[in-house]
């Protein structure tokens, strides 16, 4: 099913991405931040995609731990890579915005710190898969599950603790032009996420097939 999704997701994602600058330009400026606020239209969608990756990796890791299906292991590994990719985009665009809006590149507040820790959990997942040796797939699955359990804390941190980061009430209260631009970019990022996930799972499947062929040759 993922293989069939690759082409439509890629085409739709590229089209939406190409149209994003025009949609973003049509959205009004925010009153206190001006031009720099337009990073919002890439910053928030990248975190949407990252959280989707976190949940796919977590669920696939849970299925792998309890059922040992290799397809779920491949899906978890692919989703973890995309989690790191989109998390990196969020962690770069955020400080670029913060430098202008807050006057500092970084603050060790609840939202920023927990988001960085969540990203590092999935970097650890990838390092374990790459260098962990035999049995690291199950250990990595445990880390993926732990990462998924952390995600709600990252999301709710701005509402629970006092942070410099805007609260979750911003998105539901956006005016139509700003909300339209945001959801356009969210759709673009999620389409590209789908295309990249399909491609990455295909790569993992081919690697497993190659390993099996080598084992058969040795046997």
């Amino acid at each position: 099913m993922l293989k069939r999704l690759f082409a439509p997701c890629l085409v739709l994602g590229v089209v939406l991405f190409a149209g994003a600058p025009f949609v973003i330009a049509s959205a009004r400026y925010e009153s206190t931040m001006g031009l720099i606020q337009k990073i919002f239209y890439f910053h928030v969608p990248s975190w949407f995609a990252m959280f989707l990756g976190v949940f796919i990796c977590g669920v696939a890791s849970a299925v792998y731990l309890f059922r040992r299906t290799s397809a779920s292991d491949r899906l978890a590994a692919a989703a973890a890579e995309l989690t790191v990719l989109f998390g990196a985009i969020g962690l770069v665009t955020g400080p670029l915005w913060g430098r202008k809006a807050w006057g500092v590149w970084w603050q060790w507040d609840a939202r920023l710190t927990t988001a960085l820790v969540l990203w590092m959990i999935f970097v650890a997942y990838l390092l374990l898969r790459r260098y962990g040796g035999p049995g690291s797939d199950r250990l990595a699955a445990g880390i993926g599950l732990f990462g998924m359990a952390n995600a709600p804390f990252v999301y709710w941190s701005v509402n629970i603790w006092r942070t410099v980061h805007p609260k979750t009430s911003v998105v539901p209260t956006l005016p139509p032009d700003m909300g339209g631009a945001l959801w356009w970019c969210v759709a673009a990022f999620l389409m590209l996420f789908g295309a990249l996930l399909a491609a990455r799972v295909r790569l993992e499947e081919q690697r497993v097939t190659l390993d099996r062929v080598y084992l058969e040759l040795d046997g």
Partner: protein
Amino acid sequence: MKVLACLLLVSVIGAAAHAAQAVTAGPGSGSSAERAFAYAAGRQPQLAPAGQEEFVPIDELPPEDQLPAAPLLVTGYAFAWLAIFGYLWSIWRRLGHVERELSEVGRFAEDRPRT
């Protein structure tokens, strides 16, 4: 005396009515005396914003106001584009490498004499 007091009372009531009308009508309406009365009555008249009295060099602003926003915005967008399409290119390259190796190993397995 009584006539004077009545005249005074009428003028005060009239002035108050005029002042109320000036305040609700907005800036520019009524005389300066009426605006002064409205202010004295505890209502602030609406004044036009003061013109800029001096030019402030950009390096005297707080740090967050000195930075131009456009380079930061462009850097953010460029990083996102490069990261996503760079990753897509890396998957395409790795997939090509694995599929080439798979076809070579497949050919080797077919050509290998069976024992």
